[in-house]
């Protein structure tokens, strides 16, 4: 099987030759492969000063390096970073041309044998700081207005995801966080009113275009697990063990309706013992893998500061236990 076939099998809850892997982001490229995925020359402020030829060359090199890193890691889904002005969509209603170029090159360098992914959510996430007060008050004082804004956000996300589809993005990573460790920010009833219908629309539109959808949220999702699954994403991501989410239980409850990704304990990877890290990875494979519909990954991302050897440790467990045959 190619990486793509393997990922598609897992996302559609079939049994591939072995469990695929990927991460929402990989922040250890410099530590493990010698340089960061994103070259500083392509950051905004520098990018504009480059000639078209220089820009194209750097994007091509970045794409080649992206393909190299993820091929070495054996990822079946490659999360593409935004290249160019991230606000371009808001300003021009188009994706940045640099991103389109980058996606095309990565596809060429991977021979079309992996799925390409990018962020595509457009639902309310947990608001920060003082925004949280304003949001809560609006929910109480102007629920219709909140719903109208949610619809507008969903419409814009759907339009943007269509452009991503045209640019060759196969997988939408829907990354609005909804939950704390203790539970959802919104009550289940509020979630059903202010988020769920719009999440469903975004997922349905992506699927209509042939895209795969992975819904990510940190935290304890159990009080809204049924609502997330009702939105019919291909996969649920994170399954945050720091928030008490247990892949064994989630698999039992909804494993016949949605692919599961994650649950390898990120905090243990940072501060736990090697034995704890190995135990977490083994647990996930033991209870996530049976019957297909499982993608191996951490419960967050291999973040900057995580010891690279700890990430390598879970990849070693994955290689040892991943085969279905």
């Amino acid at each position, binding site marked *: 099987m190619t990486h793509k076939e393997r990922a598609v099998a897992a996302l559609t809850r079939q049994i591939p030759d072995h469990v695929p892997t990927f991460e929402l982001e990989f922040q250890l490229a410099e530590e493990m492969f010698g340089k960061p995925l994103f070259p500083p020359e392509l950051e905004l402020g520098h990018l504009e000063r480059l000639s078209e030829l220089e820009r194209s060359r750097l994007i091509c090199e970045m794409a080649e390096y992206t393909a190299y890193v993820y091929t070495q890691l054996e990822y079946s889904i490659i999360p593409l970073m935004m290249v160019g002005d991230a606000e371009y969509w808001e300003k021009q209603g188009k994706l940045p041309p640099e991103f389109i170029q980058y996606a095309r090159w990565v596809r060429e360098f991977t021979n079309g044998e992996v799925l390409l992914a990018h962020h595509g959510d457009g639902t309310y996430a947990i608001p920060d700081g003082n925004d949280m007060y304003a949001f809560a008050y609006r929910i109480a004082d102007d629920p219709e207005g909140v719903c109208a804004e949610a619809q507008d956000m969903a419409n814009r996300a759907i339009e943007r995801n269509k452009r991503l589809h045209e640019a060759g993005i196969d997988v939408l990573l829907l990354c609005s966080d909804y939950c704390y460790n203790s*539970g959802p920010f919104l*009550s289940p009833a509020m979630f059903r009113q202010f988020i769920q219908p719009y999440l469903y629309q975004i997922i349905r539109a992506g699927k209509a275009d042939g895209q795969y959808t992975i819904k990510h949220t940190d935290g304890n999702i159990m009080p809204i697990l049924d609502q997330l699954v009702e939105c019919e994403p291909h996969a649920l991501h994170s399954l945050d063990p720091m928030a008490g989410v247990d892949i064994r239980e989630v698999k039992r409850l909804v494993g016949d309706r949605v692919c599961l990704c994650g649950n390898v304990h990120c905090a243990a990877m940072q501060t736990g013992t090697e034995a704890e890290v190995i135990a977490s990875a083994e647990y996930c494979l033991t209870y996530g893998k049976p019957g297909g519909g499982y993608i191996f990954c951490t419960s967050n991302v291999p973040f900057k500061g995580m010891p690279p050897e700890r990430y390598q440790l879970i990849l070693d467990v994955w290689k040892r236990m991943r085969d279905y045959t």
Partner: protein
Amino acid sequence: MDLHEISVQLQAGKAKMVKTLVQQAIDEGFPAQEILEQGLLDGMNVIGEKFKNNEVFVPEVLIAARAMNQGVAVLKPLLVEAGVQSTGKVCIGTVQGDLHDIGKNLVKLMLEGKGMEVIDLGTDVAPETFVQTAIDQNCQIICCSALLTTTMGVMSDVVKAAEAAGIRDKVKIMIGGAPVNQAFCDQIGADVYTADAASAAEAAVALCS
């Protein structure tokens, strides 16, 4: 009127109604402290307990707190006039290097809901700022919040700064946040760890009583 109605309306987040009812209670001659305790604080206590049990969620807490603040605003001149004291004085902040304030804000709301006076130092607060505020404002408790494993160590610096300033025996230090636990609290020599905002408020009241 029944002061319990203030509590009920506060729990529902009906700010205007709470304000009206508090004024009505004043007009009917209820003592300010009674209105505060049996109406406003009772409502926030119920909300805090329900929040702890996942029966209400953050927006409902914030909306209830807004209702309480409106009721307190009406009541405040009378409370001052009657010489009603707060149940304790606390300074609270998210530790240096950490900009996350959701948890800290929730604890603040719950503390106020228990009738405590809270000095909010915001985020990214240096250990010396916690300690100096506690000295200047005569706080009985310093509350430290952190979300990151990389910043939780600053809580230890707060404890050390309090020791260095010679106020460790006069002030209790409470800690909370996603990465910390009782073992960490014991390790750094803080006084109290709580896992959630409502428990933090209960613990603070116990420390001040």
